[in-house]
C-alpha cells in the first residue's frame, strides 16, 4: 500500500518536472481554449466542419436512407472526434498531479497518512466541476446520438450545432446577455408560467366537460393557454363559452405585456453590451499591430492629430471617456474605445508592456492630461508620452512626472500670431512648411550605409542639383538617438551613415532623395 502511494507521488513529481508533458499539455490548451493562439482558428474550422457534416447527414437521412459509408463516418469518425475533444478538454481543465502533490505535501506537513479515498474524491470533485459546466454538458449530449438504440436521441445531433457557439465568439456574446439578465428573465418566465397555469385550468374547468370538442384533457388547455399568451394564436383550439372567452381576453392583455417586456429587456441588455463587444473587437484588431500609438481624447486637437497620423501611416487607437466622442471616432472609421484613460486597465488590455510606443494626452483638461500621463508612465516609463497643456505651472509639474513632451497649443499659436505682425512673409513660409498645405515641405532623410552621401563632405554634395535647401544635419552620436542639430553645416563636415539631413524642398525632390538612399 505504502509502496503504491510512493509510486503515485513520484509519478506526480515526474509529470510536474517533465518538460515534454507540460509542452504537450500547453499546446493542447492553446489549441482548444486560448483565443489568442494563432492556430486555434484552424481547430475551430475543423470542428465546425465536423458538426455541420453531422447535422447535414441527420437532415438527409429523413427522406431517403444515406449510404452506409456516410453512416459509418457519422457513427465512428464524428463520435471519435467528439469523445477525444471532450476528454482533452477535461484533461487540460486542471492538473491532477498538482492535486496529488498538494495532498501529499499537506499531509506530510501535518504528519498524517494520505488516504487514497479522500485523494480520489478530491480528484473526482475537481473534474466533476468541469463536467457540470454548461458547455461540457452540451458536449456530452452531443455525443449521445451515436447510440443508435434510441431513435429519439438522433435529435440530439442538433446539440452538436450548439457546440458551434463555442467556436464563434460573437455568439457567446448573446449567451452572455441572457446570463446577465438571468434574474429578470427568470422572473418573467415564472410569471408567465403562472398565468398559463391559471388560464389553462380555468379554461379546462369552463369548457373541458364536453362543451368544447377540441379540449380533451388538461394538456390541451395548457397548450391553448401558451399559444394565446404568446400572441401566436393558431386557432386550432378556441374558446366557445362566454366564460372561456373572458379568460382569453384577460390573458391576451397579459400576453402582450409580457412579450414586450421580454423584448425590451433583451434589447436594452444588448445595448449595454454593445460597447463591450466593440471594445473587444478593437482590442483584438490592434492586438495584431507591433507598434501602437494611443491617442487620448478625440476633441478638436485629437481629430487633427489623428488625421495627420493616418496620413503618415502610423497605427493608432483612440481612447475617449465620453461615449459620444468614442462613437464619433468609431464612425469616422478609426479604432476607438470608450474608456477612462486615467485607469490602468485599458492600457494593460492594449498591451502597454509590449506594444504601445507613444501615448498622446490631448484632452481639453490639463489636469486630466497630467493624470493620464502619470498613469501611463507609472505602468511603463519607456513609453513616450506627449501631453497637451495650457498652463505653464502645470507644464512644469508634467515635466516633473517625466512627460517626454509638453505641448501648449496657445503658446504655439501665439508665437505664430506674433510673427505675423512684424513679418507677414516669414509667417506665410512658416505656415506652409508647418501645416504642409503646399507641395513644398520640410522633411528628414536618414543617410543609409553605402549610399552616395555616405562618407561625403557637405561641400561635395550638389544640393542645387537635388533641388533641396539643406537646413541642417543631425550627427549621429553614441548617447542620443538623433544627436545634436548642426545648423547650416560647413562644407568640410563629412556625412556618415545614420546622420539625418533636414531639408526643405518640393515633395518630389525629397522623395527622389529618399529613393536614392
Amino acid at each position, binding site marked *: 500500500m505504502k509502496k503504491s502511494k510512493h509510486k503515485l507521488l513520484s509519478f506526480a513529481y515526474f509529470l510536474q518536472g517533465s518538460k515534454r508533458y507540460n509542452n504537450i499539455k500547453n499546446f493542447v490548451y492553446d489549441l482548444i481554449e486560448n483565443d489568442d493562439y494563432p492556430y486555434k482558428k484552424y481547430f475551430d474550422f475543423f470542428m465546425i466542419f465536423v458538426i455541420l457534416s453531422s447535422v447535414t447527414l441527420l437532415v438527409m437521412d429523413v427522406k431517403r436512407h444515406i449510404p452506409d459509408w456516410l453512416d459509418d463516418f457519422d457513427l465512428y469518425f464524428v463520435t471519435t472526434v467528439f469523445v477525444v475533444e471532450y476528454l482533452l478538454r477535461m484533461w487540460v481543465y486542471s492538473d491532477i498531479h498538482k492535486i496529488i502533490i498538494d495532498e501529499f505535501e499537506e499531509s506530510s506537513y501535518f504528519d498524517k497518512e494520505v488516504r487514497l479515498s479522500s485523494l480520489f474524491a478530491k480528484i473526482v470533485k475537481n473534474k466533476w466541476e468541469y463536467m457540470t459546466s454548461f458547455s461540457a454538458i452540451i458536449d456530452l449530449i452531443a455525443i449521445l446520438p451515436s447510440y443508435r438504440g434510441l431513435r429519439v436521441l438522433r435529435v440530439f445531433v442538433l446539440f452538436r450545432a450548439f457546440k458551434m457557439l463555442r467556436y464563434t465568439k460573437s455568439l457567446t456574446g448573446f449567451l452572455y446577455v441572457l446570463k446577465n439578465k438571468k434574474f429578470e428573465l427568470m422572473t418573467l418566465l415564472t410569471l408567465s408560467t403562472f398565468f398559463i397555469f391559471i388560464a389553462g385550468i380555468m379554461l379546462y374547468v369552463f369548457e373541458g366537460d364536453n362543451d368544447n370538442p377540441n379540449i380533451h384533457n388538461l394538456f390541451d388547455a395548457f397548450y391553448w393557454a401558451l399559444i394565446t399568451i404568446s400572441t401566436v394564436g393558431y386557432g386550432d383550439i378556441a374558446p366557445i363559452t362566454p366564460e372561456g372567452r373572458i379568460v382569453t381576453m384577460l390573458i391576451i392583455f397579459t400576453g402582450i405585456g409580457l412579450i414586450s417586456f421580454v423584448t425590451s429587456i433583451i434589447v436594452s441588455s444588448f445595448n449595454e453590451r454593445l460597447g463591450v463587444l466593440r471594445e473587444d473587437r478593437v482590442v483584438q484588431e490592434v492586438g495584431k499591430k507591433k507598434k501602437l500609438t494611443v491617442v487620448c481624447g478625440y476633441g478638436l486637437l485629437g481629430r*487633427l492629430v489623428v488625421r495627420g497620423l493616418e496620413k*503618415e501611416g502610423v497605427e493608432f487607437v483612440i481612447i475617449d471617456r465620453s461615449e459620444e466622442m468614442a462613437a464619433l471616432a468609431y464612425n469616422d472609421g478609426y479604432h476607438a474605445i470608450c474608456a477612462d484613460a486615467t485607469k490602468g486597465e485599458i492600457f494593460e488590455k492594449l498591451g502597454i508592456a509590449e506594444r504601445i510606443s507613444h501615448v498622446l494626452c490631448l484632452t481639453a483638461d490639463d489636469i486630466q492630461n497630467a493624470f493620464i500621463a502619470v498613469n501611463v508612465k507609472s505602468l511603463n516609463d519607456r513609453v513616450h508620452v506627449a501631453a497637451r497643456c495650457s498652463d505653464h505651472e502645470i507644464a512644469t509639474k508634467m515635466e516633473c512626472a517625466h512627460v517626454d513632451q509638453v505641448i501648449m497649443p496657445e503658446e504655439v499659436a501665439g508665437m505664430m500670431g506674433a510673427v505675423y505682425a512684424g513679418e507677414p512673409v*516669414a509667417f506665410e513660409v512658416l505656415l506652409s512648411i*508647418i501645416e504642409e498645405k503646399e507641395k513644398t515641405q520640410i*522633411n528628414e532623410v*536618414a543617410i543609409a550605409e553605402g549610399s552616395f552621401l555616405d562618407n561625403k563632405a557637405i561641400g561635395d554634395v550638389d544640393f542645387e542639383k537635388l533641388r533641396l535647401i539643406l537646413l541642417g544635419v543631425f550627427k549621429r552620436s553614441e548617447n542620443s538617438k538623433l544627436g545634436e542639430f548642426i545648423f547650416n553645416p560647413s562644407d568640410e563636415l563629412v556625412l556618415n551613415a545614420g546622420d539625418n539631413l533636414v531639408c526643405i524642398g*518640393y515633395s518630389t525632390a525629397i522623395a527622389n532623395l529618399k529613393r536614392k538612399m
Partner: protein
Amino acid sequence: MEKQQNIVLFGYGSFGRQLYKNLRSRGHNVKVVVGLDDYVEVDSDSNINITRINIKRNDEILALNINAEESIFYCAMNKTANNLFLVLTLKSLYPMANVISNSNSNETTRKLKYAGATSVIDLYEATSRRIVNVLTKPAVSMALDEIVYKQNDLKMLEIELEENTFLEGRYVNEIRFRQMGIILIAIIDKELGYELVFTDHRINHKLDAGDILVIVAKEKDINKFQEMLNKG
C-alpha cells in the same frame, strides 16, 4: 530691424495672453481690449493696460480712436462666435483693416475668411503637426523646435531689399549665402508678382529692390548681413 506695429488685441484668454507676451517681446505696441464681462487673468508682474468695452456696439469701438490704416487687429476672444462677430464689425467699420483671428477648426476658418479676416491662425493645426512630427519625423520636429519654437539665437525672419544694396541686380545662385551663415528659404520676387516662392533652385531669381527674402540664420550672422546691406 522688425517693423514696430500698432496692434489692437481683442480678448485676453489663454491664447490672447500668449499672443500678448510674444508681441511684446518682439517690441510691438499692443492695446488690449476685452468685453465687459470677460474674465481676465493678469500676471502680477506685467503692467498691462486693459480697456473694457461692449464689443457689440460700434460707437464704443469707434471711441477707441484706432488708426485702422496703421494697425493690425487681432481677434482672440474665447468664443468663436465672438471672433466672427468682431471680424464682421471691424470689416464693416474699417473695410481696409488688417484683421487676424484665431480659429479652432477648418470649419471656423472658412467662416472667418468669408467674413473678411486677412489671415486666420488655427489654434490646433500647428500643434497637431508638431505632435505628428515627433512620432514620424523626429529630426524635423527637433529642427523646427530650434528654429521656430525655442527662444535662442537661431531665427527665421524676412528682409526687404532696399535701393542700392550689394545684392541689387545679382542672381540668387551667384551669392554664397551659406558661407555667410544664412540659409535663404523663400523669396518674393517682384518681377514674378507677389507670390511667395521657395528657393529650392528651380528658378534662379534676379534680386531687385523691393524683393523680400525669408532667411534662417543665427543672430550674429543676421546683424553682419544687415550691415553689408546697409553699406550698399
